[in-house]
């Protein structure tokens, strides 16, 4: 296959450019003086991905999904690749950086700047820097020894130096180049390069030749030159195999030598223009025999199949070259083969690429999330965590990047795709903003606000109470530099980390005290750091890094002390309750693995939650822990989900609000400051484009409503179901309070019950309308006795006899259950308690009597049904009517007249009822009348039920009362 040279194409605006391949060689990355980094899938890519990295980009390097660029603001920046999201600044110089390069394993970056300095920086920890001083002029280019021992550099002072990386000393120095005062005046940018693999040779472009220096001896081994080179060489680049060396000249020529034979194997004159622009970027494809190059006009070009003419025996190379041709289609070879014929190896390559993408993308995503945090200047002590997060990600990337760089000829890519451990989140105080801020909230809760100012003039703490009647606002000097605070209606609790001389301190200002000494301080033992604090009623607690929780009285008496199963995340106190969230273990894939303990520190000390797992949204962390004003534990995660302890369902956690649903923008958040159950209020501060509010201007509190994530809340049914369960959940605290002997508002409870029952009744009516009688019964099961009776009335009035009957059966059952329950308590009064319940035992008679205009016969039948039934117990309904008919006919005409008259009397009432449908009095009258009739006719109906009468009375009384 002959070597091919494609025409150059526009890449960047005129000016210095740089080029490199990504690890797999699937795309070309260029940077230029327009400040953009472009990612080209191939040379024909008309829509390359552009990343703006600065005003001007001087150099770029790419490894392990990290794009390092040297930009005009004198910094070296990291971007993620291929997403291009900024990932921080690696290092800074006082002048712009001329060249950046990765070490072979990608863990270090070397940067040479116009301020004569060279720095080698750990990619994962930019604080680990090594500075190399010695050049007396701007540094032109750098090259890492593949064995990571040496670093070579070329400078405008004419010297090429080799440095020992470990002790930052200059190992050797040659004066090879022409001296100049600045990069722009340099004849050549002298991009030197070590031979890959062994690092045996260092190639330095020196004027029109390439000089190769031997490692360790540092003497000139040999020189490569060619007659075609008429101008100084700018760049040299080794092929990844270390066999070939390419050099680009300032007049746009590229020459390739075989280093072993020292033969020139390819010569290109890449310039079509009159003006010969110099080649300033040269990069070999990591696997194939291609060279990508850029010139100072900003053009990008590609040379393919280099050395193929000379070495056709290299099978792997030619095979992969084919792959490559397919990838970068448009090759003449492809045209010859015909587009329809695909080389069999191509899908594999594609697969490999896909795999690589699959692995890289999610990681990039995680990183982006971290960056989001960065933008918001990070909250809750995560500032440190994020750097460790980055580290982890980098580690992960290393693994992936290194492996994806494997040649595609291997059939399987054995990369680690198991779950990655998540860095543990740092401890935080609920309602605080990050510690590193100069002006921050130390706490904002339902009692007040503690602000901390830490600037040049002042280091102080401002305490302000929402309710000025609790205590007046206070201003304290922050001489101990407290970082944690909590506030209750009786005390202020502050804590600081230890310094070199001073131990970690807990400082309490008990303004509720009636004596003169309102403050107390406790020093932690040596090497013990307070990590979280909280205040309850009459007690204070702190958790330390020794995995201890120390409880104090609010007056300063040391009380209980106990061990935590893991490092604390946060604590909260309310009344007697103490809630501690800690790390239960290591989370994976971005999840945190948290546990929660809830205990009561009252007279009867007990643990309610014994270190249960704390459910969090996936890939989120905890941002707020606390209690509702009524004392129900709640917490908020970084995805804005508010969860509350549902004491009614075995102490499970129920999501009660998604604050992100209320946000307008993607980056808006709500910063929760308090939760109230009655009235249902989620108090929070809207933060535009941030996770937490600034101290100035003073943020205003907004109130969000709660919403349980029930299905189909757009429908009436879903809405009412959500309302019902929300009401239930948000009134659980009353049961808890009453159980623990606190006083609470009976009235509120009654209101809540009424609200719930009303909702049930509405749901019942809705289900009735939808002909869902089974559902009606299910709903009735949730109702109280009184409301079941109403439901029975509703059912019978809407002519659902079957339903009404079932309900009545259920009501009886319920009543007996209740009675049994009561009977257990007062056994001797069993009978009375049973009868004291207003049970409606519905029969057809009753229903008919109530709600149908009746004929005389019907009335008669009602009275005599029992008789008929006792006579013929196995008759069915139709037969009973038949039998009744025949018996009715046997009556005398006068008797029949009497019955008809009665029926008419009933009808009068009926019409009255029609007129005032809403008023149950008519109905009641009717019921009463029927009863009177019944009592009159006791002689006729042998078996009148005593229960019937009382229930009817009760029902009517109830109906009257209720409506």
């Amino acid at each position, binding site marked *: 296959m002959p070597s091919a040279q494609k025409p150059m194409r526009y890449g960047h605006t005129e000016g210095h450019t740089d080029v490199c391949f990504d690890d797999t060689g699937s795309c070309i990355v260029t940077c230029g003086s327009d400040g953009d980094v472009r990612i080209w899938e191939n040379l024909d890519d008309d829509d390359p991905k552009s990343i703006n990295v600065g005003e001007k980009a001087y150099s770029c390097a790419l490894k392990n999904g990290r794009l390092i660029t040297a930009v005009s603001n004198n910094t070296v920046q990291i971007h993620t690749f291929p997403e291009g999201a900024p990932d921080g600044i690696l290092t800074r110089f006082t002048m712009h950086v001329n060249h950046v390069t990765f070490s072979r394993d990608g863990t270090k970056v070397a940067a040479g700047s116009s301020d004569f300095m060279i720095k080698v920086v750990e990619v994962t920890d930019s604080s680990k820097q090594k500075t190399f001083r010695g050049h007396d002029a701007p540094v032109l280019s750098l090259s890492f020894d593949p064995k990571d021992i040496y670093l070579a550099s070329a400078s405008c002072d004419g010297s090429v130096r080799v440095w020992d990386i470990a002790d930052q000393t200059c190992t050797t120095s040659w004066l090879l180049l022409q001296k100049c005062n600045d990069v722009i005046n340099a004849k050549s940018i002298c991009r030197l390069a070590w031979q890959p693999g062994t690092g045996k040779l260092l190639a330095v472009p020196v004027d029109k030749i390439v000089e190769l220096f031997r490692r360790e001896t540092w003497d000139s081994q040999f020189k490569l030159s060619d007659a075609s080179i008429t101008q100084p060489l700018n760049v040299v680049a080794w092929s990844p195999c270390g066999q070939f060396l390419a050099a680009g000249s300032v007049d746009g020529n590229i020459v390739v030598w075989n280093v072993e034979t020292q033969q020139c194997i390819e010569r290109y004159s890449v310039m079509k223009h009159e003006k010969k622009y110099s080649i300033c970027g040269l990069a070999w494809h990591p696997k194939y025999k291609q060279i990508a190059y850029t010139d100072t006009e900003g053009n990008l070009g590609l040379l393919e199949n280099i050395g193929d003419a000379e070495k056709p025996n290299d099978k792997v190379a030619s095979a992969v070259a084919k792959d490559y041709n397919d990838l970068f289609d448009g090759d003449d070879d492809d045209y010859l083969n015909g587009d329809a014929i695909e080389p069999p190896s191509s899908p594999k390559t594609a697969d490999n690429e896909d795999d690589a993408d699959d692995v890289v993308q999610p990681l990039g995503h995680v990183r982006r999330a971290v960056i989001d945090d960065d933008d918001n200047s990070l909250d809750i002590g995560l500032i440190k965590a994020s750097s460790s997060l980055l580290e982890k990600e980098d580690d992960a990337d290393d693994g992936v990047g290194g492996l994806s760089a494997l040649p595609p000829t291997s059939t399987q890519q054995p990369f680690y795709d198991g779950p990655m451990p998540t860095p543990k989140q740092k401890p935080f105080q609920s309602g605080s903003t990050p510690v590193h801020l100069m002006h921050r909230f130390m706490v904002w809760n*339902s009692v*007040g606000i503690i602000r901390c100012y830490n600037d040049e003039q002042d280091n102080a703490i401002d305490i302000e*109470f*929402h*309710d*000025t*009647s609790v205590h007046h606002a206070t201003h304290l000097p922050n001489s101990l530099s407290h970082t944690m605070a909590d506030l209750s209606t009786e005390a202020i609790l502050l804590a600081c980390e230890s310094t070199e001389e001073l131990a970690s301190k807990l400082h309490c200002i008990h303004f509720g005290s009636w004596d003169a000494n309102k403050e107390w301080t406790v020093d932690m033992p040596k090497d013990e750091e307070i990590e979280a604090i909280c205040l309850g009623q009459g007690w204070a607690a702190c958790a330390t890094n020794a995995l201890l929780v120390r409880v104090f009285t609010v007056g300063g008496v040391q009380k209980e002390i106990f061990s935590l199963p893991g490092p604390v995340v946060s604590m909260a106190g309310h009344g007697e309750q103490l809630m501690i969230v800690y790390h239960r273990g290591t989370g994976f894939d971005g999840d945190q693995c948290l546990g929660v303990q809830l205990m009561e520190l009252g007279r009867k000390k007990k643990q309610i939650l014994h270190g249960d797992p704390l459910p969090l949204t996936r890939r989120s962390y905890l941002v707020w822990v606390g209690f509702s004003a009524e004392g129900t534990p709640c917490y908020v995660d970084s995805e804005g989900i508010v969860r509350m302890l549902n004491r009614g369902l075995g102490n499970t956690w129920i999501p009660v609000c998604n604050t992100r649903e209320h946000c307008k923008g993607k980056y808006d958040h709500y910063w929760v400051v308090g939760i109230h159950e009655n009235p249902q*209020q989620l*108090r929070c501060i809207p933060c535009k484009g941030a996770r937490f509010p600034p101290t*100035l*201007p*003073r943020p*205003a*509190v*907004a*109130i969000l409503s709660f919403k349980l994530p029930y299905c189909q809340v757009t429908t009436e049914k879903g809405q009412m179901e959500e309302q019902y369960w929300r009401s239930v959940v948000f009134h659980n605290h009353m049961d808890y309070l009453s159980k623990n002997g606190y006083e609470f508002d009976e009235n509120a409870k009654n209101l809540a019950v009424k609200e719930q029952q009303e909702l049930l009744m509405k749901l019942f009516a809705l289900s009735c309308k939808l002909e869902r009688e089974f559902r009606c019964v299910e709903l009735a099961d949730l109702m109280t006795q009184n409301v079941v009776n109403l439901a029975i009335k509703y059912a019978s009035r809407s002519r659902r006899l079957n339903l009404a009957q079932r309900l009545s059966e259920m009501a009886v059952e319920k009543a007996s259950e209740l009675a049994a329950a009561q009977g257990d308590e007062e056994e001797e009064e069993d009978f009375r308690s049973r009868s004291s319940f207003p049970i409606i035992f519905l029969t057809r008679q009753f229903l008919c009597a109530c709600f149908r205009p009746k004929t005389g016969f019907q009335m008669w039948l009602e009275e005599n049904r029992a008789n008929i039934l006792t006579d013929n117990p196995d008759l069915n309904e139709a037969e009973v009517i038949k039998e009744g008919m025949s018996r009715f006919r046997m009556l005398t005409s006068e008797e029949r007249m009497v019955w008809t008259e009665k029926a008419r009397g009933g009808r009068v009432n009926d019409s009255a009822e029609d007129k005032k449908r809403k008023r149950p009095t008519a109905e009641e009258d009717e019921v009463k009348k029927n009863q009177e009739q019944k009592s009159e006719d006791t002689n006729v109906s042998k078996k009148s039920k005593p229960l019937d009468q009382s229930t009817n009375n009760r029902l009517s009384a109830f109906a009257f009362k209720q409506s």
Partner: protein
Amino acid sequence: MEPAEVEFLAEKELVTIAAQFSLDRIHLIGGDLGPFNPGLPVEVPVWLAINLKQRQKCRLIPPEWMDVGKLEEIRDQERKEDTFTPMPSPYYMELTKLLLNYASDNIPRADEIRTLVKDTWDTRMAKLRLSADSFVRQQEVHAKVDNLTLMEINTTRTFLTQALDHMYKLRTNLQPGESSHSQDF
């Protein structure tokens, strides 16, 4: 109408405060207010807000428009257009004066706000004088002026109406033929 009376009317406007005390819902003739929870925003009439503020029982949360950026926009818009532009509140002048006098510590950049509102006011008053002038010059019989607030109307009402009356009288006296008719009224 006295300016004080206009101010009295303006005091009925609702503003948001963050109470620093706890009080149940209160029932007044004008409607129910509250409940007041410490730290929570609640809407109250200006008169109550000022009263509470004076007793240091609340913190005022300035109305949305009382913001330097928004007021600059309003001022620029007012200067740009020949007609009156709608104001953020029908009592913007009164509210600014009241709130800045009593609760300037709760309003960020209070002085700038004062200046901006005054600028807007001056622009509008100039426009009003100008339109009155052209109205008189062109001897128009009627004119329509939109987006004027009560306080603004109030500044010119007494003078302009009386002046127009006088002018009418003077004009009719110049034309003796018609004067007799007008005298009959």
